[in-house]
């Protein structure tokens, strides 16, 4: 099966980013939410109310559906650029469906 998202340009330098316990190679300086989608991540978090899975929805900082935990603080993935180093996790660890 084809991956859900395709990257048109592949030239950027890739850096290792830890997400939900796995190491992904993402383009440095790219939008984090876009880079995670292109790397095949669909579920970014689970809701605190029902534990329902969520992923990016608006990509412009308004909906807060793409929340991830970056080095312990909850941030909007669509408002962050990819950099080497941080440990990224789904905000509600322990919920069902922890697979990528």
């Amino acid at each position, binding site marked *: 099966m084809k991956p*859900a998202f395709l990257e*048109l340009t592949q030239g950027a330098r890739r850096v290792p980013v830890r997400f939900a316990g796995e190491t992904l190679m993402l383009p440095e300086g790219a939008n984090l939410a*876009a880079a995670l989608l*292109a790397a095949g991540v669909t579920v970014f978090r689970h809701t605190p*109310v029902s534990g329902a899975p969520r992923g990016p*929805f*608006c990509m412009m900082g308004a909906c807060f559906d793409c929340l991830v935990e970056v080095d312990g603080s909850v941030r909007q993935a669509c408002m962050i650029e990819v950099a080497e180093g941080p440990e990224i996790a789904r905000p509600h660890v322990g919920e069902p469906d922890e697979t990528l």
Partner: protein
Amino acid sequence: MRHYDLAILGAGPAGMAAAATAAEAGLSVCVLDEQPHAGGQIYRDVERVAALRGDILGKDYTRGATLTAGLRHAAITHLSGAVVWAIEHAFRISFTQGGAAAQIAAERVLLATGALERPMPLPGWTLPGVMTAGAGQILLKQSGVLAQSAVLVGSGPLLYLIAAQMVRAGVPPVAMVETQTLDDLIRAARHLGGALRGWRYLLKGARMLAEITSARVPRHTGATGIAIAGESRTEAVTFTSKGRAHRIPCDTVFLHHGVVPNTQAARSLGVSHIWDRAQSCFVPSVDDWGQSDVAGVFIAGDSAGIGGANVAESAGRMTALKVAEELGRLSATERDRQAAPLRSARNKDLAARPFLDRAYPPHAAAVAPDDATVICRCEEVTAGDIRRYAALGCLGPNQAKAFGRAGMGPCQGRYCGLSVSVILAQANGLTPDATGYYRIRPPIKPVTLGELASLE
């Protein structure tokens, strides 16, 4: 705290154009924008991206580079990655940038905060893989990331634009599931006279449709009963069109049935808003110059009422001229002389609006969703919940918060506010004006204690 003549929120077409015109008139300007690069959503990251994907995105996108270039003026301070969380009167603006909070002061404020997608609550719209069409465009513009198996759902010019861009990129959508009907087009035809003044928009629309058709993208019109199916992610779109039930498997769904003004900042300042029947949304009360009913607060571009990028540019410049006159940098005569061509350009660009608003109205099933459909994505409050609150005597959205937390999650009602107001209005037999909207209070974006502690 640095002091400026004019603080502008948003570096989209209205904000960038206003900044350039204000600086030219001798004002000191500070532009605060959430994104790392200027352009807003329409010209997102255009300076870097025009060379990479200008052919796919088209001239209506690459022309934004002339506006971003205009920000390089000695009198303009452009604060990128600056998230404004409070605007206090006469005017102190608090924001977070690079993990630290800071403040500036300004004589006048221009809110150029643009548009949000009109919320389109359909069964399954919270599943991962369902995004706004705007999000699809942002992915393509800023990141060069394209959905390989996407169904476009809804109606309106933006839906055709993203479809045409996907065709040009060699990854056409799987299908278009369009909600407008032939009746809508017939109703819109009455406004063709006005639309012919804005014929360039109609021509662009026809060209985009030709691109989509020649790529053999299936178009299903008059679609009803639309739902997104899937367990933990999007698997298919189901709907009925022309009496036949369809199920189209896909990984991604882009939703769109128009955009609405982003009124969050204006509401936090106490600007009054009225229901615009033609556009089915609340718009702030502003005069011809963008002056709101709160002294010193101006609004231009889509955040003042949807008009598109060209209208935003003219409106932004007009506001800048008005502020320059108020602060004694321009005579009223000179202001009016410079504003005249901007006003006529703006009115010409607005001419096709009544036709477009009626040809692509909001999707009825997303305006009055089934009881089980989630309305408040953050707190997972359904349409049925909201109707139950109404039955218990809930008259307005602020009361609805007390009944069941609708609008109290991190998005602060940005993607449920309109739906909650309209559902309550329908249930109570009241107008949207009488029903009202969420009271918006600062902080209008989340700020951490650590960031606050960094304030001097």
